[in-house]
């Protein structure tokens, strides 16, 4: 994670080509490095200032005014009380939809990803191309068509309808990232199981899936975050308040005039918790997804 113990041959050679003694050289090399850390912290502080401000504003006692102190010295939890009272059910709805999307996306994508990593055929590149292009289709195009279809099928205002729609954010990404991992599974361990008489399905369930545990976690986390963040399908595929994800709750709060900023910001903080918690606790998996699957 950190480069405190710099890899030999890299930093020392560039910082002090003719080092008199290694400890002296390291001390000399560390000073500019710590300055870099300070600059990096400054960049991060600027980039994350809005996040800080969201938390700060959520703890302000005021109702409809925005005047906030720089530090929440007298934190008030009135905004949170209001947010939980009004948006609590919506948070639960979002949670159910997101968990459903994770389960559905992994169940659909994992077997396909495995086969796409195994079969050698020129059709594979065609399939991968289609998956790449599908990620580029604007959400509003899907929403337009799904609204009409959902209206006929009675899927508007339903949790499973939103799960199916939100999976469009996740499934192409999950297929690509799982396939990239499964390509690296040594064929010998699967073949060994096959020779012992296991069928494709059993080899997949008892060998491939356990070995792919880390990439499944990464893919699942992203599926969760994509679905949790969804706003477009929440907005277009619900017409009543029966099923209302929290993103839509925030949007209705915003309206044309905001009447209670601390409640809005408290809801925003609660809606940010999954991203913040996962980034801190599951950093390894998130970083793997950000670089591996490359794109949202």
């Amino acid at each position: 994670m950190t480069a405190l113990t710099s890899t030999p041959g890299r930093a020392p050679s560039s910082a002090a080509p003719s080092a008199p003694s290694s400890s002296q050289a390291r001390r000399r090399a560390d000073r500019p490095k710590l300055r870099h850390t300070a600059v990096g912290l400054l960049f991060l502080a600027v980039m994350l200032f809005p996040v800080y401000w969201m938390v700060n504003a959520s703890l302000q006692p005021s109702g409809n005014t925005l005047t906030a102190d720089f530090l929440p010295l007298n934190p008030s939890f009135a905004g949170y009380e209001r947010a939980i009272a009004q948006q609590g059910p919506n948070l639960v709805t979002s949670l159910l939809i997101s968990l459903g999307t994770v389960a559905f996306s992994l169940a659909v994508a994992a077997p396909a990803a495995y086969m796409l990593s195994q079969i050698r055929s020129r059709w594979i590149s065609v399939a991968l191309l289609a998956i790449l292009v599908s990620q580029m289709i604007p959400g509003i195009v899907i929403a337009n068509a799904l609204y009409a279809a959902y209206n006929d099928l009675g899927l508007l205002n339903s949790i499973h309808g939103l799960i199916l729609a939100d999976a469009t954010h996740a499934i192409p990404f999950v297929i690509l990232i799982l396939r990239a991992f499964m390509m690296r599974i040594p064929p010998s361990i699967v073949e060994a199981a096959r020779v012992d008489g296991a069928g494709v399905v059993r080899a997949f369930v008892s060998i491939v899936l356990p070995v792919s545990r880390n990439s499944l976690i990464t893919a699942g986390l992203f599926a969760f975050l994509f679905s949790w963040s969804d706003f477009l399908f929440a907005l277009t595929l619900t017409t009543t308040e029966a099923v209302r994800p929290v993103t839509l709750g925030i949007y209705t709060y915003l309206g044309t005039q905001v009447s209670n900023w601390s409640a809005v910001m408290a809801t925003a903080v609660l809606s940010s918790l999954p991203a913040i918690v996962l980034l801190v606790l599951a950093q390894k998996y998130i970083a793997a997804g950000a670089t591996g699957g490359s794109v949202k």
Partner: protein
Amino acid sequence: MPTLETPVAPGGVSPARAAAPPARGARRRRASRERLVQALFLAPAGLYLVLFFGYPVVKNVLMSLQEYTTRTFFTGEAPWVGLANYATAIGSNLFGPAMLNTALFTVGSIAGQFAIGLALASFFRKRFPLSGFLRSMLLLPWLLPLIVSSATWRSILDQDSGVLNGFLRGVGLISEPIPWLTSPSVALIAVVLVNIWVGIPFNVTILYGGLQEIPEELYEAGAMDGATGWKAFWHITWPNLRPVVSVVLVLGVVYTLKVLDIILGLTNGGPANATQTLAVRSYQESFVNFQFGVGAAFSNILILISLVFAVVYLRLNRRAVDE
């Protein structure tokens, strides 16, 4: 007690089974069974992609050629109207501004995201204590729900009591508060600024990955020839990073074209239609005016533009693979 006939180590090859190949008929049966299993593994994902990506694209083309309104949902009638929806879309007085705003929004966002993203990625390439941790924390704006970011920025950009105007006045940069989201001449700039903030993490991540691929030896060799600092950037970094840069830019365009959440959350296309884009037009025609045919026409125009960039992307990608 293991007997001599079963010397099978766990995971090893059983000689008994390997020595006795199945009869030809059985093998063929097994092969066709194998193919059936393969198909079953692929079928759910294939079906899903067809239903939730293929069908909407086709359905949008059909809808754009029909008079598809709220009435359609009651009567089931959607008369064919040819290209009338496209005529309505292109003829509307919001079409020109929406096209222009889409272009300005996309170009402005990409330019800002890319420049700052490349600067930060180059900075993080210098290894220093906590660099990995700081870099992953930088991902946060990308992982937050866009509507959360919109709400937060709305409070920051508030004309009278927002912290940004307070700060700018405090340091003496402005004397009058800037109406970030309420003035038609400023709103698009404000929306672009927020979208730049959202897009920086993506650019940093991909560009950082690209920078890591450039071998250290090139810089060491360059340094001997006197290429350091900016010279090293122009002669070593930039030429080697070019393929990654093209991919970032093209993908950035495709993803920025379809941005909807940020604009709806910040301005709803206003004030006075100053932040209308093609995506916003499509949404409002379909789900505010319930003119699904016209909305579909707008979104097909959007798809057509995305398609051009998607083709560019795929060509770049193929070239990268060929090389």
